């Protein structure tokens, strides 16, 4: 019968239409912003800096080694080291800027960081009204606490905490072995 194929198509469309009222597999619309999709744990958007404890300045894990700045493919990170009065570099960044209008969320900065101090955030509601000021995130915008990290990436944060704990124990064992044998070395 001519037209049979079209009628079969119409049956399928009708099934989808009717199903969109009661069948959860066909009700796919999400009423954003009242409903938000639950993001999977690994989801990533832009980077952020992790600090331990409550103090975002003293607890910041970043030691300003500049490896992430070098490895970033679109070169969107800008770091300036903190120096003390005599000009000696301290292990703390004075300026840490990420230009999120350039950042492509590739996660290479996270992979190369040797101190687990930069991780990927999940926040995506970052629209700004002004391009040149609001879309560069500075150190104070980027620093978020370890508890926040545990909330957004629980498995990953637990693994990182375990690694850091093991490293700290190793470091303390070495220090106590060294101080018991020799006089305290110049720090």
């Amino acid at each position: 019968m001519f037209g049979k194929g079209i009628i079969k198509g119409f049956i399928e469309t009708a099934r989808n239409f009717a199903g969109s009222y009661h069948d959860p597999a066909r009700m796919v619309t999400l009423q954003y912003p009242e409903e938000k999709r639950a993001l999977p744990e690994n989801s990533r958007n832009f980077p952020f800096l992790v600090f331990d404890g409550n103090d975002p300045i003293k607890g910041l894990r970043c030691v300003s080694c500049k490896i992430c700045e070098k490895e970033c493919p679109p070169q969107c990170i800008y770091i300036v080291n903190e120096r003390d009065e005599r000009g000696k570099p301290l292990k703390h960044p004075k300026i840490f800027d990420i230009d999120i209008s350039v950042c492509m969320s590739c996660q290479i900065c996270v992979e190369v960081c040797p101190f687990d101090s930069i991780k990927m955030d999940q926040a995506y509601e970052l629209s700004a009204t002004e391009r040149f000021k609001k879309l560069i995130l500075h150190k104070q915008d980027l620093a978020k606490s370890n508890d926040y990290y545990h909330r957004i990436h629980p498995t990953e944060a637990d693994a990182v905490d375990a690694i850091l704990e093991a490293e700290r124990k190793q470091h303390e064992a070495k220090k106590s072995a060294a101080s018991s044998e020799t006089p305290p070395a110049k720090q």
Partner: protein
Amino acid sequence: MESIEQIKLRIEQAIPGVILEIIANGSPGNPASIRVDPEHALAVARFLKDDGQLRLDYASNVTGVDWPDKVAQQTVKVLKMVDGVEKEFDAKVETREPGFLEAVYHLYSMELKHGPLVLRMRTGDRAGQTHLPSLTPLYRSADFQEREIYDLYGIIFDGHPDLRRLLMWEGFEDHPMRKDYAEPDDYEFEPTAHNQVLAKARRHYPPKASNG
């Protein structure tokens, strides 16, 4: 597929006067390539395509490579007369090895399902003698790829049915993929926050010779 030495022998037997050279590949497990002289390239490609054992009828990839001039500085001892006494001085001598442009063809066989055979052709130099024969009459897949090599490197393919720029707009001068391409900075653009960030970041590292 036969080994590359056997293929070279058979091509030399079939096409008199051809100059072939096997260029070894530094990385193990990857095929070496055959360099063909431009006069006989079309004949060699036709032989490879029609030969019963090879039947290389599919040109998978046509690439251009830029080898700039190699400038080496050597310090040589030179004798000079100073105050009537012959003395030895150190003089810097610059040796310049001419560069060339290269076209690389990866040939496979869809009929016999083997491959690849890598063919290379080199131009005379990078400025005046940049003509190479086009393999488009034999392999239609080289059509757009040779146009792209012309656009980005400047190799002129003789015998190509329609050699125009492909990716850059018509009227564009210069060839972007060459190693000495200088990006023009006289265009208008709106400064973005990134430019400041990039300029600031670049001051940390020694200036690179090429455009990173």
